[in-house]
């Protein structure tokens, strides 16, 4: 069985990943007030984060509609790279060698899974 994965699907899944990475940033921003108690779950940042997360599933579902999951899922790794950069910018989290190494290993792993999925 041959399934062709169109470029539009790839771009949709990458868009979903980048939107999702911003979603993670706002989830973390919105999670901070919850240190004071779970009732602080309703705050604008968290809701925006959830909206981005849910929103990102729309291009994701549109993307996976055509093409192979094994080709499309590796595109999600762009979100991990973005998130590490946003973590540095927005939360001052250092980009350390173990983190960078782990990210490279993970991306390599995802690419391998992609190659194996062809």
């Amino acid at each position: 069985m041959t399934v062709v994965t169109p470029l539009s699907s790839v771009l949709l899944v990458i868009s979903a990943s980048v939107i999702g990475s911003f979603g993670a940033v706002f989830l973390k921003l919105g999670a901070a007030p919850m240190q004071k108690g779970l009732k602080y779950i309703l705050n604008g940042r968290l809701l925006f984060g959830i909206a981005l997360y849910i929103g990102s599933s729309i291009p994701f579902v549109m993307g996976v509609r055509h093409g192979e999951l094994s080709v499309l899922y590796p595109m999600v790794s762009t979100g991990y790279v973005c998130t590490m950069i946003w973590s540095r910018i927005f939360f001052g989290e250092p980009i350390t060698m173990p983190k960078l190494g782990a990210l490279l290993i993970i991306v390599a792993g995802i690419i391998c899974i992609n190659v194996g999925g062809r």
Partner: protein
Amino acid sequence: MQNTTPAPRSRKPVYMVLGCTVFAAAAQIMMKYGATHAMPALDLNNSATVMPFLLALITNYPLVLGYVLSAGNAMLLILALRDGQLSTLYPIISLTFVWVNLLSIYLFGDHMNLWKGVGILLVITGVGVLGKASEAA
């Protein structure tokens, strides 16, 4: 106000994100089923097509279940992110690939091969390194 002493970082957020990956994998599989579910055509210029589409959308159970699982995933992720670093926790979500690939072999008849095996091992290794990094950070 923090009600805990600033002890060394615990692994709890890491375990919570590991839980997220199980939810996320199940959600993605469900969304794949949902996306291939037969749906009536939606023409926004023709209001008569809107209701049948919405009705089909909410009775597209795999898709609905996918969203419910995603909500559980998000909830767990929020609680994990409250206590841990985004840069160490977020890439752990990549473990979802491992579950999705293993499930795809079972559900969609995908084949296991050397590349996939190596890839799965690499992702697990990377997540392990991040788990370690989360303690040091």
